[in-house]
């Protein structure tokens, strides 16, 4: 599994398509994105990471930047998203952060 992360609208999906050499349509079967949203209210992040790692490519948007939210639920969601990304990076053969459309190899 290749884990792709990066800021919002940084070109993560476009990079995934380039990597796999596939169309927008095909990407739906080969990759999963917005993984950070699935971390919210998830009871077992390890298990979720295992499930997601079955895809060729897993994409998650970084959401831990900016001001720490006042709302406890939002804070918890951010924490969970961050931890999920760490678990995905551990399971990945390769980790890439896309920034302004430019990929940087992290692992």
């Amino acid at each position: 599994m290749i884990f792709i992360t990066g800021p919002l609208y940084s070109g993560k999906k476009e990079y995934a398509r380039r990597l796999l050499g596939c169309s927008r349509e095909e990407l739906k079967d080969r990759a999963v994105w917005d993984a950070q949203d699935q971390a919210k209210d998830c009871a077992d992040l390890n298990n979720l990471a295992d499930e997601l790692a079955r895809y060729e490519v897993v994409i998650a948007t970084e959401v831990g930047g900016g001001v720490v939210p006042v709302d406890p639920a939002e804070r918890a969601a951010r924490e969970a998203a961050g931890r999920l990304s760490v678990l995905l990076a551990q399971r990945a053969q390769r980790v890439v952060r896309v920034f302004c459309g430019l990929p940087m190899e992290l692992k």
Partner: protein
Amino acid sequence: MFTLVIGGAASGKSEYAEGLVLLSPHRPRYYIATMEPFDEEGRRRVEKHRRMRAAKEFETVECYTNLSSVRLSARGTVLLECIGNLAANELYSPSGAGTVEGALSAIAGGVDTLLAQCEDLVAVGNEVFTGGSDYAAGTEDYLRLMAGVNRALAQKADRVCEVVCGLPRYYKGAVE
């Protein structure tokens, strides 16, 4: 040489970008000022920055919208700061393009115009994309525009870096 410097609030991106300009041998130094002062506080802020940059021998060129209209008198080094202001002006100011697509082409096209008129360009952009995506619709437009501009400029640039705690991380090219 075109360098795109991106960073979050108070990341040290401006100081780093200014340092790159001071390293360039090409004179004169131009500072493209994009913040439109709306009140007394804004005017004082602009005046303070203008004095600081005058000491470093920058010539200030004001440009709030329509970057393509800028004409430089000589081929020198340009500091464009910052893209966040320019994007907001193009999107929300009465003289701006008004739409995400229009603003994107106004800014990307404007950068091409600057590149044709100078030896070195350092543009400063903003990292505002890792605080989640739960925003009102208007903010979403602004974020999409900023991301579009960042990606378009990153493609044109010789060097792209993100400044974190005053330290640059290069995604493209690198300083010699």
